[in-house]
């Protein structure tokens, strides 16, 4: 049991501006279930990718079964017995389960496929896990749980010694989770090491033997699960100090600008919240908690199944983003390049597009009004570019974000939804965005900020709502802000 199957030694990986992994060393034993926990952006994904050979580390060693590698390729990783089961399954939907298990090898003699053997081998593996579905049905007809079993079977067939599971229970029903745990126990018995990444701490206490904690790209500690507590894990995961200076509010929040009552749809359930003028409401939660999904409903980009949305105290039927904008709600989307900016167009063009009808007369765009409108916001947001005719794709991330914000403000919005406002933006520009947000809220705008950056959430928000699995799990007032508490609410099982 104490034989080391995989040792990571002093792994470092830097991306421009961010140290994703900072001198990380972890040992994995043969036949153990080893969980890795950490907040969004702690470096878990990068670590998996390095083990799987998808990302090259800048320095450090990977000792796999006694062999030392400085980097691996995906092929080397697989042939050395590493399999990764990603959140998005890596299956061919139109091929059968058995064909998927055999993918990448020659299934039979010559050029013909020996389906009999394929299905027999698949059936054998399924039998071992005590599952019974036919190996010859196309993968697209399987449930998420069954697809996962196909993935695991594929790993077993490739004689995997280490199986990395990234949030394996996210798509599963409760019964399927039970089944998965049964399979994991069976794999453990036969000496396979499972590296288990999950946000759900309860599961870790159910299934894992040891748990390693990461924070900000650093390795923090490894504990025996039997010798630790939920509380201790969370305190290891947080414990960060605020580095940036965050501007505080100058005004008291006034009337309710937006109220959401019992809203259900697009994967979120029974959500109620409100935000006042002059207030910044932070939305905390783990990736996939349903925050962006909720914001898209409020903005009319997804369908509201039931519930009510009140804007300025009046019931509003928001069935399209166009309607939302008309009511004064603006969205600064998560994916700036795909959803926010028109990259090949000029800054002025971008700023005016949501407002283009208002600055037109008889269908013709009034050039003077266009110039004035874009100049107003160009100056207000201090966008840095040689001219307003500059193509947006040539700007830095921070300036692109300002252009998107300018576009939303130019549409005369007073409820602003920022979805990950500073993702991929460097520190200087970040602070500028924070000051802008605070200035807007002081001017009486109501702001909802979805963020996965804990520091930003604590620094900017006047109040925080926490979501988990499509529901609100708690509300925290500014005086009671506490990372540990937020994390606990965010990883709560419902």
């Amino acid at each position, binding site marked *: 049991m104490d034989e080391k199957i995989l040792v990571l030694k002093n792994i470092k990986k830097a991306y421009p501006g961010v140290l994703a992994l900072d001198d990380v060393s972890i040992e994995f034993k043969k036949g153990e279930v080893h969980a890795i926990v950490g907040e969004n952006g702690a470096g878990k994904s990068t670590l998996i990718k390095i083990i799987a050979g998808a990302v090259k580390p800048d320095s450090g060693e990977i000792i796999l079964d006694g062999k030392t590698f400085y980097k691996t390729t995906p092929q080397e990783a697989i042939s050395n017995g590493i399999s990764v089961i990603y959140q998005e399954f890596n299956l061919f939907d139109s091929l059968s389960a058995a064909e998927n298990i055999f993918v990448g090898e020659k299934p039979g003699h010559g050029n013909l496929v020996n389906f009999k053997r394929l299905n027999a081998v698949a059936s054998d593996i399924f039998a071992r896990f005590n599952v019974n579905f036919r190996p010859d049905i196309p993968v697209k007809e399987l449930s998420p749980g069954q697809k996962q079993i196909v993935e695991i079977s594929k790993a077993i067939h490739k004689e995997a010694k280490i199986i990395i599971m990234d949030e394996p229970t996210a798509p599963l029903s409760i019964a399927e989770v039970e089944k998965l745990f049964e399979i994991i126990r069976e794999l453990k018995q036969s000496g396979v090491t499972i590296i288990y990444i999950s946000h759900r701490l309860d599961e870790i206490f159910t299934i894992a033997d040891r748990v390693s904690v990461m924070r900000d790209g650093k390795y923090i500690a490894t504990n025996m699960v039997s010798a630790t507590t939920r509380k201790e894990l969370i305190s290891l995961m947080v414990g960060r100090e605020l580095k940036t200076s965050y501007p505080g509010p100058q005004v008291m929040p006034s009337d309710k600008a937006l109220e959401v009552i019992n809203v259900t749809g697009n994967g979120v359930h029974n959500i109620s919240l409100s935000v006042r003028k002059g207030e910044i409401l932070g939305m905390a939660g783990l990736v996939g908690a349903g925050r962006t999904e909720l914001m898209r409903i409020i903005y009319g980009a997804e369908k509201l199944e039931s519930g009510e949305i009140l804007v300025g105290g009046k019931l509003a039927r928001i069935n399209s983003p166009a309607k939302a904008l008309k009511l004064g709600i603006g969205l600064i989307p998560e994916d700036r390049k*795909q959803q926010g900016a028109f990259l090949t*167009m000029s800054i002025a063009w971008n700023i005016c597009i949501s407002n283009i009808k208002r600055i037109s007369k008889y269908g013709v765009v009034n050039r003077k009004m266009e110039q004035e409108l874009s100049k107003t916001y160009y100056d207000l947001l201090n966008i840095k570019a040689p001219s307003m005719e500059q193509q947006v794709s040539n700007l830095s991330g921070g300036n692109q974000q300002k252009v998107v914000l300018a576009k939303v403000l130019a549409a005369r919005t007073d409820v602003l939804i920022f979805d990950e406002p500073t993702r991929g933006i460097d520190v200087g520009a970040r602070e500028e965005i924070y000051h802008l947000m605070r200035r807007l809220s002081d001017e009486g705008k109501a702001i909802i900020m979805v963020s996965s950056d804990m520091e930003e959430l604590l620094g900017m928000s006047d109040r925080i709502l926490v979501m988990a699995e499509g529901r609100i799990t708690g509300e925290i007032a500014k005086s009671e802000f506490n990372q540990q508490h937020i994390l606990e609410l965010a990883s709560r099982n419902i």
Partner: protein
Amino acid sequence: MNRQPKERFDSKRFSIMGILQKYVIIIVFVLCILVFGIINPKFLSGSNILNILWQNAYMVVASLGMAILLIGGGVDLSAGYEISIGGVIAAACLVWWNIPIWLTIILSIAVVVLLSMLNGFITVKFKINALMVTLGTMTIYSGISNIFTNQKAIFNLPAAFKFIGQGTIFGVVPLVAVIMVILIAAASFILNKTYLGRLIYAVGVNPEAANLAGIKVEKTKMMVFALAGVFFGISAVLLVSRTGSANASMATGTEFTCITAAVLGGVAIQGGEGKIWSVVVSAFILGILANGMQIIGLGVYAQYIAKGTILIVAMAFDTYQKANGTKRLKS
């Protein structure tokens, strides 16, 4: 981590490469004229230049429609048969049904607009790629066109109607050329000066961002198809009034020339990019090529080879530029 440490304004590269890319189409245009002019001086005669205008006015107008469609994120492979149907409808109105000329023109354009909007409707409502939709309607419209005419040509259009396509102003300037210039100005005005033009570019370049920017993407796309239909319809009237007769497949292949002209003129096949003036120049390059190849004695099939090659080269150039562009963005 799409962090960019500082702004990248590579002014030198922008000026040389930028100007070259911007005006490459003019260079090609001049080159074409020079080559054919040197091989056969008859090509440069006044009568031949007028001839090129006569022959290509309807094509330029149709190319305007296609350019608008492509910029708005659509495409129309059925344009050739839409124009054919517009032509036979006009001829039928005049010859079979004795409908007045002004009403004939309106009816014929209206029918083409409807056909184009049907393409738009199917594309938008069933979320099918416009390329596949119009591949289907191309066949459907060809069937309709042939059944409608019973595969017979319609002759003897009234002289007053033929004046549109054959008449001149002040004895020299072809009326079709005047109409063409007006329509070029109109297309350019719509795309550059009106808010509809902004919306067309927006839905073409990034429909997702357009939706989130409060633009009604489906409605705008329908407008794009309708607008293209107007240009195709006018193109049909110009064509049938010049030839003086109509038949079921009188404009087949127009769609190919139009798409080639648009792509050669720098209209991005994925939508959202393109300038009217360069599409017009490109349409004339293709017209000159056809005319010039005829004059130096190369047949119609050699022209096919030339046109197909041009389309592929233009697309390859476009893709190459795009790939380079994104590489620069990522670096």
